């Protein structure tokens, strides 16, 4: 199944800028991207980046075992944003290197814990997680809380120039 994420360049730039900011104690930052969703003429899902939701400094929790740990308040804020206006929620963080990133074991474990909770707020939309690198990404998407996992297949960045990242 084709899973395409399409982002406008200014939004992607804003996400990178936000994730690159140092945090007082966390080793990395995370955030949430909310997206519109659409069907395609072929089996697949088109996700359209709409808004970036920053996680405030105070919503991080100290945990030396992971690069970033956020508390329930950070999740509640993004849930509040999509409540009443259904949207796909992607949990986003960045691996600071070039080329296609991969999910770490910690990423794998944690997204299986928090993604099902996204469906409690908005059951009709797919939800998942996204890891950005400097010039690529990797993503995982679920259409049901405990259903099959789909891999993000392409990322289109709409700007001047346009970029198409075909993901392995």
């Amino acid at each position, binding site marked *: 199944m084709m899973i395409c994420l*399409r*982002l*406008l*360049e*200014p*939004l992607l730039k804003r996400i990178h800028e936000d994730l690159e900011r140092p945090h007082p104690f966390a080793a990395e930052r995370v955030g949430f991207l909310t*997206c*519109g*969703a*659409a*069907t*395609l*003429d*072929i089996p697949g899902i*088109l*996700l*359209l*980046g*709409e*808004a970036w939701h920053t996680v405030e400094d105070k919503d991080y929790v100290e945990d030396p075992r992971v690069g970033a740990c956020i508390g329930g308040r950070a999740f509640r804020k993004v849930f509040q944003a*999509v*409540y*009443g*206006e*259904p949207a796909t929620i992607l949990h986003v963080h960045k691996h600071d290197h070039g080329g296609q990133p991969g999910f770490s074991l910690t990423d794998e474990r944690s997204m299986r814990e928090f993604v099902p909770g996204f469906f409690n*707020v*908005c*059951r*009709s*939309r797919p939800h998942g997680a996204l890891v950005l690198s400097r010039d690529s990404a990797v993503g995982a998407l679920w259409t049901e809380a405990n259903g099959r996992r789909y891999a993000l297949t392409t990322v*289109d960045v*709409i*700007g*001047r*120039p*346009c970029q*198409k990242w*075909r993901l392995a």
Partner: protein
Amino acid sequence: MKERSKRQSFLGEHSDEVLSGATIGIIGTSGGGTPIAQAAAHIGFGTTHLFDPDFTEEHHRHRLVGISSVAIKHRWKKVRVTQRLMWRVNPEGRVNPHACAWQEEHEVLRSCDVVFSCVDGYLVRDELERYLRRYHVPLIDIGMDVTKYETGHSIRGQAILSLPGSHCMRCFGFIRDELLQEEARRYGDAGERAQVIWPNAALASTAIGLAMSLLLPWHSHLTVAPYLTYDGNKFEITPSPRLRHLEGIACKHYGSSVHAGDLRYGARASDG
């Protein structure tokens, strides 16, 4: 690099891959759309969706690239003529003809990297731009018009890049409510607009250039104006003066508050 692409190799090491993987849409395959289709086939775009519900008639002969007496005699659909035109140049390209209005098979446009609008009228342009903005698809619009004056005729036209996240055709003043209202008032009584091949060819080439500047920029500091006007009495294509008034101003018509995607994607009553 394919043998056919050697002379356009300056577009980049991976330009063949980018082009063969690209999908374009062409709305309207007459005087404006056929030279775009022809150029797209030469360049080597992988997939093209052609939209036009009309069939060929004798009065298309003076401007529809690829038309033939057989096509006119048998009243071939314009998209069939255009498909054959593209296949003669690039048999590897996938050309999907849609002999209908774009609204009838609109989903294919969501997969397009660029859509070319070669239509008559402001209402259809406005509707197409609204649709493509919802799916973050760049739109390139071309068109020409002939105005009669006491001393003769004036040929004018435009090539506009409506890039999601940037200025739209309303920002450029090209689409205005009063024009839409006037067109709606005259609905069914618009008459046939004058068309000739050479302005269409110039504008089509410009449109293709705009698309290439998006997909395979050949310079790191390309500063292509998104609204170009064509003066057919001077043979000039120049940036519209309106662009000066937009510097530092964001699009107010399709801002971040406009929701993207399907309005009721997977809608369930249980959603908040």
